[in-house]
Structures are given as C-alpha cells and as structure tokens.
C-alpha cells in the first residue's frame, strides 16, 4: 500500500534529530564556540517551566513555547518525531502489543496526572528533583556518563592495538592529536553512578514488556505535559464517520494506544501524529484536520486528584525538610558559578551537560553528598580532576542557569571552596621531606600556597642524601619547605588536591565554604 504524507518520514526525522542531538553533544567540549549546544534542552517545556517558575528567564527559553503549544496543532509530534529517548524506546524496547489487566491499566493511566501534580508540588517546594525523569535530561545524562566514556576507552584501545604495528604509529599519533580533549581525554573519562544510570535507561526500555511504549504512554513527565496541552487540540486525527466500519485495524496499529470508540475518536493527549492508523485503514477514512473527535478515557475523579496530590505533597514535603537541606556536606562543592545551594536544587535539571563539557572530568554526578534529592546534580571530585584555570564552559552549557556563566577573569576569582592541609599526612609536615607539588601548581597569580623553611627531624638529618652523601642536606632539621594555604587567595580549584602525591586520600583537600563569592582583588 502506498503511504502518503510527511509521516512516511517519521523514522527519518527521528534519526536526524538523534544525530543532531548527539552531534551537538559531541561538540560540547572545550572550547565552546557560540553555538547553542543545549538547544534541545532549552526547548524542553518541562525544564523551561521550572526555570520560569524559579525566576530564571532568558530569551532562549522562547524555544520552548512552540514546543509546548505544538500539541494543539500536531499532537505529540515531539514524542513521535523528535524525542531521542522515544526513538530508543521504539527501537530497542519490545514491540509486541501487550494488554495488561484492567486494574494495571487504570493505575498506569493515572500516572501522568500523578507525575504532573508531583512536579507541580516539587516546584512549589523549590525542588527540581522531578527533572531527573525529564526524557531529554535522561538521554543527555545517559549518553554523557555511558557513551562517551565507552567511546574514550574504545578509541584508546584501538589506538593501543594499532600502536603495536610500527607503520601505523604515525597515523595513530595524528588521530590522537585530533581526538585529544574531544573524544579521548588525558585521564580517561569515568563517572560515578554509571550503573544506576544504566539501570534507569534499560529499565525505561524494558518496561515496554508490560505494555508497549509504556514509558512514552504513561510515565514520561514531558509527555504528560504535552498531553495536557493536547487535550485542547485544534487540529488532530479526524475520521470520516460515514466511511468508518469500526473494523479496529487502526486501534491495533496505534503505538500510543490513543484510539477510542473502535477507531472513531482519539485521545488527543496521546496521539503523536504518526498516522500509522491512516496507513492501515482499509477505508482510507483517517486523516489530519480541524476539530478532531476527542475522547479522554482517563478523566480523574476528585478523589483520584486528591490522592495523587496528597502523595506528591507528602513527597515534596519530605524533600523540603530533609537533612541535606539543612546541613551541607563539606565535600559538596558545586562548579564555579553555581547558585546558592537552595536555588541550585530548585533549578538544576540533572542533565549532565556540565559533566560532558568539563575537560578534566572533575564534575561528577553527586551520589549522597547532596542528599537523595540531589542525586545526579554536579559535584566537584578533586581526585578525578580539578577546575582548569582556562575553562569556564560549565556555565556556558547549563540550560537552566543553575550554573551561571562567569567570564574567565571572574571565574578565576570565584571562591568555590578552600584547601586545607592535613599535616598528619602531608609529606613535608609528617615525613620531613620536600614535596611542594601543591605550591608549584597553584595557578593563582599570587600563589595561594606559600612555604616556610623549617620542620625536618633532627634524628633523621641527611636521611635522603644517599650513600655517597651527594644529595645535600635535604631532610635535615630546619631545611624542609613546609606548605601553608593563604586563605584570602585560595579559590578552591583543587589542582593541589588532584596532584597531591600522597596515595589515595590527598593530604591537601578542598572543603566547602560558607559563602561563595569573588575574591577581593
């Protein structure tokens, strides 16, 4: 049968958008130019609504308006044509239609309402925790923490193998030059919570075993929001009521379970305008037009509304009163430019773009340091990396301005934490031998680490000088260079902690500070 119309190219659209999405994400590396790489996330109405609710208004958010209003005209085409997570669910999720029992069905159909109410209450309680489930955020986060590290390792492995053949070495070296800092990184990318993120992603694909595209139909909060708008659809799927024989072919073909009345009406909160129904209709009775005949199977009773609202309220309340909101972990250091902790929690989309762009891999998803609410929010891990003096990219890519963009001169004065020396493990202090790696690498123009001569152990004098005594007097009492942190100069970049040669736990560590502000020049 010949298919006509744009919907023939649905899969092509999906793949092109996926490639665009991955392309932009791949380009999200130092140095960022002027392209809006976070374009997809900025156009996400869920993120945009949360930002606006928190008073973050930037012109790029206007991109979200057409997306939000699109269901009035083209159904949830965003889900069917654009969303990369939707494509994954379609491609890799089980595809057979399954019919769970009526009870399960009823519960599942109540989920979108619950999701929206929960999101609403969380916004009221100043928490953006629901954005953990935003599909674009999930996709970016999964790609960042799983795909790019795998690409990094893979390319490295290919390079290592090819390097065994001397004739290929030149090629490998020039490829490495091109890829370094882009797809291959000095340390090799690694992220915390990879397994959790993987399980979440696979779970989203796997629940299609319960019902086909269950994630898209019932669980996705962005889908629910678009569906809410879709209830007021002006354009939609129209059926020639005279021609329709109620054969049910369209109902069986619809991947979104959006067809009601044996094909005669549509649940416009689900229809993604894929028009599989039109293709299978033996009567050619289905098209897209004005005033579709709508029917909403799930119209919540007051009771259901209150139940969902109550549950969401209690959840939000617990987050609001959680310990993490009161007591801040000393290791919880946010990237430079991050808003105050409370604002940060209510705005951060957990999209992991800052993790992606960070050239040193220092930005990691928080595990428990920010509380359960702060799962996946960015945190500095100074044993993985350090904040590079020449980089301010995390603020540039943040779609919600949870991390604000700082100019480089500003960033270099931005205090995000402060280094403290642990004298019980620091080599000069504890062992009486020279080290000063921290002092050497401190990038502050007026070094934030200074040293005094002193220390050393009298009984060990000359210990390091070797058999022939040629090593001088290092280690003798009073000759060791002892490092000190000058608090007024330290911004907490953590390069000292990263490079500290003391094994495992560094002897100089950055702790969070009460107020993060700019150093006075």
């Amino acid at each position, binding site marked *: 049968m010949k298919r006509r119309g744009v919907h023939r190219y649905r899969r092509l659209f999906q793949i092109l958008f996926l490639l665009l999405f991955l392309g932009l994400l791949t380009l999200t590396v130092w*140095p960022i130019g002027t392209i809006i790489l976070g374009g997809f996330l900025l156009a996400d109405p869920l993120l945009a609504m949360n930002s606006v609710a928190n008073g973050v208004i930037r012109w790029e958010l206007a991109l979200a308006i057409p997306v939000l209003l699109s269901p009035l005209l083209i159904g949830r085409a965003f889900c069917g044509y654009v969303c990369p997570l939707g494509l994954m669910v379609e491609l890799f999720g089980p595809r057979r239609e399954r019919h769970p029992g009526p009870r399960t069905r009823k519960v599942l159909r109540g989920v979108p309402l619950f999701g929206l109410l929960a999101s609403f209450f969380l916004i009221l309680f100043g928490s953006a925790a629901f954005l953990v489930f935003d599909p674009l955020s999930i996709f970016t986060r999964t790609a960042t923490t799983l795909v790019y590290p795998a690409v990094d390792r893979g390319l490295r492995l290919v390079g290592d193998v090819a390097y065994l053949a001397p004739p290929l070495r030149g*090629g490998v070296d020039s490829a490495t030059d091109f890829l*370094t800092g882009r797809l291959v990184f000095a340390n090799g990318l690694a992220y915390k919570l990879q397994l959790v993120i993987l399980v979440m992603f696979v779970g989203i694909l796997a629940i299609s075993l319960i019902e086909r595209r269950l994630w898209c139909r019932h669980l996705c909060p962005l889908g629910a929001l678009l569906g809410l708008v879709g209830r007021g659809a002006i354009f939609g799927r129209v059926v020639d009521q005279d021609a329709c024989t109620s054969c049910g072919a369209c109902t069986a073909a619809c991947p979104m379970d959006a067809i009601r009345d044996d094909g005669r009406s549509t649940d416009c909160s689900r229809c993604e305008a894929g028009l599989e129904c039109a293709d299978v209709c033996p009567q050619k009775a289905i098209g897209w037009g004005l005033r579709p005949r709508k029917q909403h199977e799930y119209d919540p009773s007051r009771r259901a509304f209150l139940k969902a609202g109550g549950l969401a309220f209690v959840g939000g309340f617990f987050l609001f009163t959680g310990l993490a909101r009161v007591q801040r972990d000393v290791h919880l250091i946010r990237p430079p430019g991050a808003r105050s902790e409370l604002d940060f929690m209510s705005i951060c989309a957990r999209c992991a773009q800052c993790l992606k762009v960070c050239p040193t891999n220092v930005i990691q998803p928080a595990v428990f340091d920010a509380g359960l609410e702060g799962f996946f929010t960015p945190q500095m891990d100074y044993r993985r990396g350090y904040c590079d*003096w*020449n980089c301010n990219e995390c603020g540039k890519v943040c779609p919600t301005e949870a991390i604000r963009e700082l100019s480089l001169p500003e960033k270099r004065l931005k205090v995000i934490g402060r280094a403290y020396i642990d004298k019980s493990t620091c*080599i000069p202090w504890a062992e009486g031998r020279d080290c000063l*790696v921290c002092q050497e690498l401190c990038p502050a123009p007026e070094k934030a680490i200074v040293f005094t001569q002193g220390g050393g152990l009298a009984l060990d004098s000359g210990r390091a000088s070797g058999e022939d005594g*040629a090593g001088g007097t290092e280690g003798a009492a009073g000759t060791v260079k002892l490092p000190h942190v000058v608090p007024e100069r330290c911004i907490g970049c953590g*390069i000292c902690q990263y490079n500290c040669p003391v094994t495992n736990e560094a002897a100089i560590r950055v702790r969070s500070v009460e107020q993060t502000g700019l150093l006075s020049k």
Partner: protein
Amino acid sequence: MRNMDRRTFLLSTGRWLVLAAVAPTVTGCARALRWSESQGRTEAGSESGGSTPGTTGTAETTTSTTAGTATTADGGSPGPTGTTTSSTPDLAVIRGDFPDKNVRAAVALLGGMERFVKRDARVVVKPNVLTGRPPEYATTTNPLVIGAIVRMCLEAGARQVTVLDYPTSSPRAAFQESGLAQAVEEAGGDLKYLSNRNFEQVEIPEGQSITSWPLVTDVLEADTFINVPIGKTHGMAGLTLAMKNLMGIMGDPRGRIHTDYARKITDVNTRVKPHLVILDAYRILTRNGPTGGNLDDVAMPKTVVAGTSQIAIDAYGTTIMGWQPTDLPSLVEAASRGLGEIDLSRLTITESTA
C-alpha cells in the same frame, strides 16, 4: 520510507558501520605504505651521504654527528653531538629585541642548525608548556622561539619536527592558550599531545635515586632532541631551567620527583642528554613560578642562551635569574657527578647582540 523492523535497521546500520570502518583502514594502509617508502628512502639517503661526505660541505660536523646518532640507535644514552670543532663556543649568548632573531644568531654561533639536524632527521623539540597562559606571562616557552627553531630544523632538511610536552593541565588548552599550537602549525612542525602509549619504561643505569622511569619514546628515538626551557623561579627546586625541563618527558607518577628532587632530576639527566639546548630568557618569571600569572613578576632580559650541555646552560641561566650556579642544589649535584661544568670561568662563552 517503509517502517523498518529491527533486523533491517541493524542490517542497514551495519552496512554504514562497515563502510565507516573500512575507510580509515584504507587511508591507514596508504599512510603505512608512504611511511615504509620514506623509511627506505632515508636509509638509502644516509648511506649515500655517508659514502660521499664531501657533498654537503660541512664534512667535519657530519662525521661527528653520524657517530652520535649511531650511539642513539644502539639504545645507549644519546650523548651530546660528538666532539665540537674548536671554533665553536660552549655557550652562545645573544641579546636583542626579537626572540626569533636571537635564536637564529645563537644557533649560528654554535655552527648552524645543520650541525645538529641532518637531512631527513626526525627532530623532537621540547618547550616548557607547564600550563596554558599567554606568552607575556613567561609561564611557557616563547612561541616565537619555538617557531624559529622549527623553521631552522626544517630548513636544515629535517623530515619531521615534533613539538611535545606533557602539561600539568589539559594539553589542548595549554598549547592553545600559550600560543604554541599556532606557532608550531605556522612553522610547519607537528604538535603532539602525549598519551600513555607514548611512554616506555626506561632503565637509568647511572641513576642513584631512581633507576627506571617511563619516558617519552619519541625523545629516545629522535635523531635530534632539542630542549627549549624558559627561565622561571620554582618553589621547590629554586629555579627551573634546562635540567628540570626534562620533567616534561617523564611519565606519571611525576609528583614523586619532588621528594629528593636534586638527585632524581640529575638521574634523569644522566639518561637523556639533548643534542641542543636553547634557554629562552626573552622573558623570565621572577616570582610566583613556575605557573606565574602576574605581569609584575615578569622581567625581560631579552636573551637566549644556546649550547649542548644542560649543565653549562643552567650554570649560565642562574646568573640571568640573579642567582649563582652554586645556589641551585640540583646543579651542584649534577656537577659533583661529573655531568658538566658549572664554573663559568672554565666555559667558552660568546656573547653578542642580534
């Protein structure tokens, strides 16, 4: 387009993947072919060059350098470029307003770049690229100096000039912010960002504190290795000049070098001996080294010092920095182990302006 099922999708994707894999393999093979051809050419070239030494016009230096290169190929430590002719000084010191002209003049005094770089030689140049800062901050070797050296090597007939370092921050950022990436590209050299596979564990037979360490393979295999440090103060070491610049060819854990530093850096200098050392003292960093970041800490002696001995270069370098050679523990250590002369009165030094 018809609605693809999984099988068709995988098949069609597979086709593209195969294509994507085949293309680089083909180009890789082509590259490999070119490489082996050029290998053959070089060997033939050097043989004929050896049999007719008079053709190049610099017969004396040619012979001595060939001997030096042969030692390298044997796997021994690359010694300084053989015996020098009596007319060339130990150190050439040039002052002038243009960093590149200074370098050219200094190398000319040592007998020209042809003395160090043979036809078709593979040259490795090692600037100091500690971290990325613009050249005015004197944190990294001057890009004009590196550009001039790359050009001179190519003019002398080098097949390939590789500029490499192992910065302590993101390599791409470091090379770009320091202006070196651009300078090397303009001069026609190859920039190299090091990865693990470029290091190999090397024995240091004369080592006292360290007896083996991972070092950059390219440096060990180079026909000519040129060390181009910049003069800076350094909290732990006192000063960083030529000897310490070799830390940039050492693999991790580099931080451990700082303990018992004087002996360890001397150990490395017994193993790796650059054929040519050029100290960039056009700008020097007088405080807050080696990272700098404050223009007030930068002085401008507008000087370049060239020579073949790391130790002699550093001995002279200390005086530019306002120190004495004996003030630097690592230098005293190196001299006591007979690596070179730090008594400036016993060195032939030609000073001039460009």
